[in-house]
């Protein structure tokens, strides 16, 4: 397997454009947590309305008295009343169990009962993970679900998992993440033959923590995974591989470091361009490329991260999501439903349930 430096540029739009129309005429029902996120309910409802259509039916779950006035007559949207809200400070497991009238629990129960196909929330991430485990349930054989994020990279996006569902992971969990991440890259991102790397502190198999060293051996021995080997932090943005596997703590730190660095570089670039007429002219010439770069780095493009390993797609949107982010999260949910992701994971991990 070779490094992928010569790949053509793939914009986020190239990835997401296929989502809204995925599955053709098949009607998919996506639940949207109308109470979740910093900009709920107005932006969330706006995003849901933008994504809804004859083939994508959106079920808004939240306080009906608040949500109803925001929805025009005739929209492909229905409303399910949930008076309670799980806040950002609520303890995830306890809230998921006890706040049974909350939008997150009511919405996930709709999916569990087969009354909806996918779930989107910009609310409390821990509570969404916990409630998904309790009500949507993991695919048999999956030991831990993982939050899989599409990382804005140049020239094309990659998948990074886990970015926060599991702070500590055993080697077998990381092997399962490799299998699920590969399936996600194929089924949701449309990468035909993705390569998988294990994040470590050196490319040699013996580099890393004991868990990472053992995980390397397990993944290397799994002939279904197109395993590149270990990758280092600096290789992520170089796009050495299509899928990067790590534990939730490291993944979260990695994601936020890259997001912060990218933002810092763009700010520095802008202030440099503003310095003089000469650089302003240069900046104008580069305008298209810079806008493309800004678009590629915008988390709203993908809408959210996918909780892989569950019986149905659960999309965890950024807490600060605006309408466009929510709409793209709904599209990602649709793509998750019509793709073979859940079936592939069940096939790959279900038959090896309990295997270590």
């Amino acid at each position: 397997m070779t490094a992928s430096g010569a790949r053509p540029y793939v914009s986020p739009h190239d990835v997401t454009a296929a989502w809204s129309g995925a599955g053709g005429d098949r009607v998919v029902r996506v639940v949207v947590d109308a109470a979740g996120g910093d900009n709920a309910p107005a932006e969330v409802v706006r995003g849901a309305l933008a994504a809804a259509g004859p083939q994508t039916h959106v079920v808004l779950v939240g306080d009906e008295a608040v949500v109803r006035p925001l929805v025009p007559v005739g929209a492909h949207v229905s409303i399910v009343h949930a008076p309670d809200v799980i806040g950002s400070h609520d303890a995830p497991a306890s809230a998921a169990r006890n706040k049974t009238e909350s939008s997150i629990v009511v919405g996930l129960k709709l999916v569990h009962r087969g009354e909806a196909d996918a779930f989107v929330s910009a609310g409390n991430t821990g509570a969404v993970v916990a409630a998904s485990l309790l009500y949507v349930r993991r695919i048999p054989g999956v030991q831990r679900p993982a939050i899989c994020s599409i990382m804005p990279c140049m020239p094309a996006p990659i998948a990074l998992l886990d970015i926060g569902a599991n702070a500590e992971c055993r080697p077998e969990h990381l092997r399962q993440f490799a299998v699920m991440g590969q399936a996600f890259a194929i089924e949701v991102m449309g990468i035909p033959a993705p390569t998988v790397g294990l994040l470590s502190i050196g490319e040699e198999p013996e580099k890393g923590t004991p868990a990472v060293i053992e995980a390397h051996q397990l993944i290397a021995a799994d002939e279904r995974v197109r395993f590149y080997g270990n990758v280092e932090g600096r290789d992520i943005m170089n796009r050495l591989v299509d899928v990067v596997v790590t534990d939730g703590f490291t993944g979260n730190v990695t994601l936020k470091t890259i997001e912060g660095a990218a933002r810092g570089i763009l700010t520095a670039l802008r202030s440099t361009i503003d310095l003089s007429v000469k650089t302003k002219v240069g900046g104008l010439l580069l305008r298209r490329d810079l806008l493309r770069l800004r678009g590629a780095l915008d988390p709203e493009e993908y809408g959210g991260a996918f909780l892989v390993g569950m019986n149905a797609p659960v999309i965890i949107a950024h807490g600060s999501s605006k309408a466009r982010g929510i709409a793209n999260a709904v599209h990602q949910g649709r793509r998750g439903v019509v793709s073979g992701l859940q079936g592939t994971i069940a096939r790959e991990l279900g038959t090896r349930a309990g295997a270590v």
Partner: protein
Amino acid sequence: MTREEVFEKVKEILVETLSVDADKVTMDARFQEDLETDSLDLVELVMTMEEDFGIKISDEEAAEIKTVGNAVDFVMKRAEA
């Protein structure tokens, strides 16, 4: 249900829902130390037990369930009540 039947049911939940290695599930097995389950797994176990045995388990009661034997005893006691 007999104690053995309850144990088998709890074992089934642990193996099928939480992918715990069946050989490790004994009455003395501690959830966190021996079966390597985390706090979320335990919530999942408690909720599945509530569903399968038709009982209610409060958060305080759930916190006291630390071994497979504790879980079996709890179900037996609740069934008698």
